[in-house]
């Protein structure tokens, strides 16, 4: 399927023969690897999906892809490895995920870089194109979202731009596939750009002194970043370069320090970009007001906060809670598993497998089927699936950055910028995934606080479903539970913000256009997250089942449970609730489910139920989340979070129970 970008067919044809000539010469000299690079929210991931037919998350929130994703593309005569990178505004990186993308760009010396840009925002994107051109690598400019640019009357003249830049410029619409074949064809033939796109003077002169002559374009770019005060490259090059003190003095004298160098160079590149775009983008005024009214409604606290409540109510309470955790779970668990699968499989295993221990491993109370598979398919799948579907729709619409903006002031009180709202909301789906996404936050302080709050006060959707089930037994308990969670969230955040040193949080982000969620995108995102969830989390669930079975078999489980009993009894819960807390570490919802059973037996009164629900929600993160915390934040932070969560859980749980009994007269 090939649709030429409007307005440029003739020149494209001419450029193609030029490409093909060079392509013949270079075809076998270069291994095929394409690196997709660009600002967040320009459709890199959607383009990646189109190029590879492999679906990864496409997001309308700056920075949901936090790692490199690669997939093979096989067309023509040889396979191509296509790599998707996190969003990057400039090689002068700000956040951790941007540094991941920058490292990929600098290291991929053999790759063809495809710079993906929003066709309506060329003047913002072209400075990065110029920076990439200075790297002297094969480069293609993909002007994505051409349909939106055309609709707004902002479509650039691609042929003219191609002629000026001397690299292939292709218009694409990743969501429909328009121009993608053309992009692939031209990327396969892309060649190292013509000379003359190095650093502008006088910035280059200084950079050459750091990098030494003849060390190549990459060294020059690293020198540029060091001179611009990049916290990674400045110390590194200052240590390596003997003449650094002298060069730093020269920088001070010429540019007034690293800031002056950075601003001067960025300004100079912007001027180059504007000159290149002169006549390329329509000069007629673009109607930018179409969305202003809706934006005002979303961003003004008077209307925005009621709208948040409405969105939360409809999307999460009604859809995820009532439909996902209610109707869908009831049917799959009660009817599908309860009536059909479990009785049949239990009968089969008991009659076919002679050893009782193995029978228990498969179908016993902690068996793989009842705990592992049933939980995964009957409880987790519908709840988490419903959550991811709603989250993907919100993400695609562009609502989440607006939510971040609206909550920024409140979040500052707990040491976070509004940006942290994204991982925190995602945490209601899966805390483990959300802990990974904290990479998009800028300072270590914000990442640690968010990690702590996720582990402590944000129940994941699987746990939430069961906790709400427990609380439905005691009228009014849900409100108390919600108020306690909110108080702990704010209180712990407030303390953490005061205890942890570091820079105060700063809000800065691009607001993507608001658009109706596109069903294709939403389904793809949901599917990708579900696949990730089942690949990363489901094996751990099964492992947890095996460990629990093993612990039960050997008596280790009972021994560990006894250790927890005093703590459980200290908050006026029956000792029988202790196993539930232990299971909670393996899976957050396991613990809650254990309590659910106790509540069903009438072993817990309303006060004890509320205590138990509060404690189990706050209690330690699940084992998968712990592993990701250790990987992302280090062992000491992970262990500290564990200790804080345990302490806070029992302290707050106990206090809530005591208050309910003493003040509320609950049983």
């Amino acid at each position, binding site marked *: 399927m090939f649709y030429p970008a409007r307005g440029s067919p003739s020149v494209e044809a001419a450029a193609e023969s030029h490409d093909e000539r060079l392509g013949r010469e270079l075809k076998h000299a270069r291994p095929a690897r394409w690196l997709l690079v660009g600002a967040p929210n320009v459709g890199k991931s959607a383009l990646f999906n189109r190029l590879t037919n492999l679906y990864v998350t496409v997001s309308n929130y700056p920075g949901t892809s936090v790692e490199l994703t690669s997939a093979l593309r096989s067309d023509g005569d040889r396979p191509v490895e296509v790599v998707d990178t996190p969003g990057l505004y400039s090689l002068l990186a700000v956040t951790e995920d941007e540094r991941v993308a920058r490292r990929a760009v600098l290291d991929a010396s053999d790759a063809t870089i495809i710079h993906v840009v929003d066709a309506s*925002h060329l003047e913002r994107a072209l400075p990065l194109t110029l920076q990439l051109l200075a790297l002297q690598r094969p480069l293609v400019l993909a002007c994505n979202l051409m349909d939106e640019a055309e609709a707004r009357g902002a479509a650039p003249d691609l042929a003219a731009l191609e002629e000026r830049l001397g690299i292939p410029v292709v218009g694409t619409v990743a969501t429909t596939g328009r121009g993608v074949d053309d992009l692939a064809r031209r990327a396969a033939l892309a060649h190292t750009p013509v000379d003359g796109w190095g650093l502008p003077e006088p910035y280059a002169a200084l950079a050459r002194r750091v990098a030494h002559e003849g060390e190549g374009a990459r060294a020059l770019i690293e020198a540029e970043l060091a001179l611009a005060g990049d916290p990674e490259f400045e110390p590194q090059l200052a240590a390596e370069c003997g003449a650094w003190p002298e060069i730093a003095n020269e920088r001070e004298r010429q540019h007034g320090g690293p800031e002056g160098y950075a601003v001067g160079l960025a300004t100079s590149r912007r001027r180059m970009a504007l000159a290149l775009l002169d006549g390329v983008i329509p000069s007629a005024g673009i109607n*930018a007001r179409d969305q202003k009214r809706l934006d005002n409604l979303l961003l003004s606290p008077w209307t925005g906060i009621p709208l948040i409540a409405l969105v939360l109510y409809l999307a999460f309470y009604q859809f995820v809670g009532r439909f996902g955790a209610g109707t869908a779970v009831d049917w799959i668990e009660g009817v599908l598993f309860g009536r059909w699968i479990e009785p049949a499989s239990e009968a089969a295993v008991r009659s076919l497998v002679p050893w009782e221990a193995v029978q228990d491993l498969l179908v016993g109370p902690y068996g793989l089927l009842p705990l592992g598979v049933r939980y995964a398919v009957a409880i987790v799948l519908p709840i988490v699936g419903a959550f991811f579907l709603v989250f993907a729709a919100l993400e695609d619409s562009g609502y989440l950055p607006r939510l971040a903006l609206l909550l920024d002031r409140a979040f500052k009180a707990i040491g976070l910028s509004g940006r942290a709202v994204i991982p925190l909301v995602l945490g209601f789906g899966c805390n483990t995934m959300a802990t990974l996404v904290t990479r998009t936050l800028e300072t270590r302080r914000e990442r640690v606080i968010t990690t702590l709050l996720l582990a402590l006060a944000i129940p994941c959707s699987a746990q939430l479903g069961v906790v709400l089930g427990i609380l439905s037994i005691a009228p009014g308990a849900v409100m108390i539970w919600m108020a306690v969670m909110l108080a702990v969230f704010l209180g712990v955040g407030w303390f953490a913000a005061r205890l942890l040193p570091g820079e105060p949080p700063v809000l800065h982000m691009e*607001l993507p256009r608001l658009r109706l969620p596109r069903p294709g995108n939403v389904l793809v995102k949901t599917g990708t997250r579900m696949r990730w969830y089942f690949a990363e989390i489901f094996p751990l669930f099964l492992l947890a089942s095996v460990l629990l079975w093993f612990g039960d078999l050997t008596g280790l489980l009972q021994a560990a449970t006894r250790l927890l009993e005093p703590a459980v009894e200290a908050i006026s819960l029956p000792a029988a609730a202790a196993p539930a807390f232990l299971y909670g570490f393996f899976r957050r919802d396991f613990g809650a489910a254990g309590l659910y059973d106790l509540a069903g037996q009438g072993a817990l009164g309303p006060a004890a139920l509320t205590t138990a629900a509060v404690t189990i929600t706050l209690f330690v993160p699940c084992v998968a989340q712990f592993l990701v915390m250790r990987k992302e934040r280090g062992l000491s932070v992970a262990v500290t979070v564990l200790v804080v969560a345990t302490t806070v859980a029992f302290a707050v749980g106990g206090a809530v129970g005591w208050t309910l009994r003493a003040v509320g007269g609950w049983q």
Partner: protein
Amino acid sequence: MNCSMCGSSAGCQGCPIGAGFYLPHTLDTLRSGQRATIQRLAAASGSALRKLLALGLLPGVELEVERSWPAMVVRLGNASVALDEALAGAVVVSIDGG
């Protein structure tokens, strides 16, 4: 560039209010609907500066303030960017038009 204290663009000689010093406008003092051109960036730290550069806030850039509360929303060309008061306070601007 007009002084935010007295509004004059004539410079500090003959300052009508006798303040005797020039007080530039910063982005955080602008109201919704005002247009301005960025004159310089006065970021206190390298990290704040890199954020401004990443947002595309550079000397010479023309902008329009869309919102000033609960955070600043600024339109640059076709794009909207959001930033808080602390960051906006580091952007020295001259107000365009009336």
